[in-house]
């Protein structure tokens, strides 16, 4: 079958240029959005968001901790808005710092979460493209995103920008708190900028491989995305894109839990399994074991990695090569590209509309109404 580009695959192809453009926009903004005093005041960080933004917070949590040494939690918007312990908010002079991510800023749950966080004394930094949105209006400070418009498709460009903005904030916090020198901070930033070029080199082959995988996998009833640490964030994001683009059943799980749960699934031969497994991931040894046993189960297998087959004892799998930055923290910036391409081509090949076109039974979700129109309760 002939490969057809589509809005989602074109979003992926636009990423190298977007990385360069967004770096120029976000680098100066992340220098000034918080003052020295505000950065030195941080004792704990809570990252929150919904959907793709939630994935972006998972992808960068470790970067915040590695670069700043500040304890950092990922808390879902629902959890922060309805369950998070009040006694843990507003302590030690407006801690924790809550960084809430939503490009549109209109989701009710994030709005609820930041209102509650401020009510109980947290300092809120909103990362959003819409200053007048509920998120924007309920933030102490705003990191304003400015993502150029593009053809509509399950969020790919906006996810990269969310990840980049959070990474730049983490680098900035570590720099100001003098965890490393300004020169080291600039090396991280320059390398981030270079990731666009690295992705651009790999995209042609990646695109071909992902299309071939989609051809083989398009009729599978279910998919399974696995990863550990920040690779789990990429796996989580991958399952989200399959759901949005194809409407098919899909699971996500971390590398250890797979051995406790997902491997039990029957009909393994028809379960497309994507393992996100970078060679520098502290759980790499477990990823290797997983790839081995996935093969024992005859799972159709894709491994997304900065290495290659040799790093997995030459186990049989389709290996998709992604950029290998020197700084481990930068991996989530580009490593989601293949999962978007696989989802994009399966959707194209089976003739499925993104988000079911918000038609028929799905019409209640038109224009994001399903997440915008929700009762906000502040206790």
């Amino acid at each position, binding site marked *: 079958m002939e490969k057809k580009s589509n809005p989602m695959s074109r979003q992926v192809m636009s990423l190298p240029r977007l990385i360069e453009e967004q770096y120029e926009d976000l680098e100066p903004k992340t*220098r*000034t959005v918080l*003052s*020295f*005093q505000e*950065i*030195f005041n941080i004792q704990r960080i809570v990252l929150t968001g919904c959907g793709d933004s939630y994935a972006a917070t998972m992808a960068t949590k470790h970067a915040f901790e590695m670069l700043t040494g500040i304890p950092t939690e990922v808390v879902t918007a629902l959890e922060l808005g309805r369950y998070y312990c009040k006694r843990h908010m507003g302590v030690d002079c407006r801690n924790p710092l809550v960084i809430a991510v939503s490009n549109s800023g209109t989701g009710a749950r994030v709005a609820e979460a930041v209102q509650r966080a401020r009510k109980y004394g947290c300092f809120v930094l909103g990362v959003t493209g819409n200053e007048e949105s509920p998120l924007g209006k309920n933030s102490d400070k705003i990191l304003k995103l400015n993502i150029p418009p593009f053809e509509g498709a399950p969020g790919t460009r906006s996810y990269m920008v969310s990840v980049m903005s959070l990474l730049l904030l983490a680098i900035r916090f570590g*720099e*100001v708190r*003098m965890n490393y*020198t*300004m*020169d080291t901070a600039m090396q991280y930033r320059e390398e981030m900028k270079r990731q666009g070029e690295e992705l651009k080199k790999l995209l042609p082959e990646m695109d071909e491989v992902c299309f071939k995988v989609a051809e083989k996998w398009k009729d599978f009833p279910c998919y399974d995305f696995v990863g550990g640490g920040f690779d789990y964030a990429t796996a989580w994001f991958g399952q989200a894109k399959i759901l949005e683009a194809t409407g098919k059943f899909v699971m996500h799980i971390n590398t250890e839990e797979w051995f406790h749960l997902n491997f039990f699934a029957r009909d393994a031969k028809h379960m497309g399994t994507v393992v996100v497994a970078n060679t520098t991931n502290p759980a790499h040894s477990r990823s290797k074991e997983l790839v081995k046993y996935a093969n024992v189960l005859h799972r159709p297998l894709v491994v997304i990695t900065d290495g290659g087959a040799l790093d997995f004892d030459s186990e049989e799998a389709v290996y998709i090569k992604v950029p290998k930055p020197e700084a481990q923290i930068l991996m989530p910036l580009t490593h989601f590209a293949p999962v978007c391409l696989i989802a994009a081509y399966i959707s194209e090949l089976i003739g499925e509309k993104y988000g079911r076109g918000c038609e028929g039974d799905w019409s209640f979700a038109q224009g994001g109404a399903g997440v915008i129109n929700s009762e906000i309760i502040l206790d």
Partner: protein
Amino acid sequence: MLKNFKIETRYNDVYDITEQVLKTVEESKVKEGTCIVYNTHSTAGMTVFSPWDPDGFLDLDDEIRRLVPTRVDFKHQHDTPQDAAGHIKCAMFGVSLSFIVTGGKLLLGGSQHIYFLEFDGPRNREFYVKVQSD
């Protein structure tokens, strides 16, 4: 004659560059003239100080920090508090020193050595020595 020297500095450290300056003057063959020692940075300074008691450098560091503590309320917030303080220290000390060359030698007192002061770091730094005849 103009010579360039490189230094890989450590955080907030002091580097004795007297030997490099003396040698440059000697190599220049200038008998009577002037020598300028200059750095191209905005968070590093130059000074003349006594080398005889190493504790003197600790006193100097203490007094510099007392005059310009690294604070978080600097208005210059583009880089880091250490960098902002470094700019002030650099402005106070200056980035150049002038010396007299006479009889083919640098006119330097017995308790005078020439120092490169790093107010930030670690950084890759450089300084220049210019020797010119009258």
